[in-house]
């Protein structure tokens, strides 16, 4: 029944446009819609009538959005803790760096570059952390719709924060480089790492802004973001003659393995869900 599928697809689009956006909610409501359509068809109604009745029974997107918003407003605990820790770290870094500015060890441009870039990296790590919690909760069956939305919303905003901060931090770094080293760009692992992290965070912001990605994809991308930022920040695998290719702050193998594990755990779960929906 291609006509029926078209009508259901249109209804789904109307619901999403009306504010009922999570794919899992739409899947569930669509399942209900289909059951009512089958029930009405079995009762002798025409297809158009059956669809009309089913749509009326499921309800308007406005009223459903209002009811769903009532339950999705709650912020889950990891988001509260993560946001508090991030804020405290931002203050701590700013205070420590400010001290170096006052004793003349550092100029204001370098201060701004370090503080903004570091807080941007930390924001990206936080979004990735939310992704890891999301995957763990889903894996152990603890991910309720409210928790999922809360984590996704937090990852959404911290992705924008990280994109803006990392871009600003990178540009401030180029200005500092022009002032002190007479060139906007320095060919070193640290610079390449920062550049890659900047490209990634900005690209992720653009993907969020212009592509309709699900909560799940956002969380998986946030985990990938942790790897990109980790490699970019610590430059552990960028071979370069100046630094001998290694600036290890911690064992990167553990860091990478940890994130690949969570990514695969999340991805396999996604694959399982995709199989179900086919």
């Amino acid at each position: 029944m291609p006509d029926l599928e078209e009508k259901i697809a249109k209804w789904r689009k109307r619901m999403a446009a009306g504010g009922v956006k999570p794919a899992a909610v739409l899947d569930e409501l669509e399942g209900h819609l289909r059951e009512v359509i089958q029930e009405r068809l079995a009762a002798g109604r025409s297809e158009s009538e059956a669809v009309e009745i089913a749509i009326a029974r499921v309800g308007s997107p406005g009223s459903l959005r209002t009811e769903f918003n009532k339950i999705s407003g709650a912020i889950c605990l990891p988001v509260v803790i993560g946001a508090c820790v991030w804020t405290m770290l931002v203050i701590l870094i700013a205070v420590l760096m400010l001290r170096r500015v006052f004793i003349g060890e550092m100029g204001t441009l370098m201060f701004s570059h370090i503080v903004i870039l570091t807080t941007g990296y930390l924001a990206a790590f936080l979004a990735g952390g939310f992704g890891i919690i999301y995957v763990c909760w889903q894996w152990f069956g603890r991910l309720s719709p409210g928790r999922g939305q809360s984590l996704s919303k937090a990852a959404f905003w911290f992705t924008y924060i990280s994109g803006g901060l990392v871009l600003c931090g990178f540009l401030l770094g180029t200005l500092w480089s022009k002032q002190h080293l007479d060139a906007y760009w320095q060919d070193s692992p640290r610079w390449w790492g920062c550049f890659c992290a900047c490209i990634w965070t900005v690209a992720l912001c653009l993907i969020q802004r212009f592509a309709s990605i699900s909560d799940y994809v956002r969380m998986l991308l946030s985990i990938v973001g942790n790897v990109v930022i980790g490699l970019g920040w610590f430059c552990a695998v960028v071979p370069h003659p100046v630094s001998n290719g290694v600036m290890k702050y911690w064992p990167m193998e553990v860091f990478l393995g940890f994130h690949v594990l969570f990514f695969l755990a999340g991805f396999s779960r996604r694959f399982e869900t995709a199989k179900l929906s086919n």
Partner: protein
Amino acid sequence: MHSVPMIPKELVAASAEALILSLLSKGESYGYAIIQEVRARSDNHMQWTDGMLYPVLHRMENNGWIKARWVKMENGRKRKYYSLKKDGKAALDKQRTQWLKVHGVLTQLWGEQEQYA
């Protein structure tokens, strides 16, 4: 004998959690089946906009009363089944006590009215 009027949506909404918990205590179920059973058991006197059941189910899932799982059906489509958790059983016991109290008070009052009528 007068006909039973439709139960207003406010009363249906107020009793929604108790109804869902009670139905799920008999075994796992899904949205459409829950609505059909409520309709059948109330002789079609309890009706709500079907979609409004889902925010209630999701809120109860957030509360940790029920859990959900997707099940692949024979037609290839998936369906979300809900079942009661331990906290849900405790919530059901609490709600049962409260509703029985309301029922008891009303029965008492109407018994008195009939006595003096």
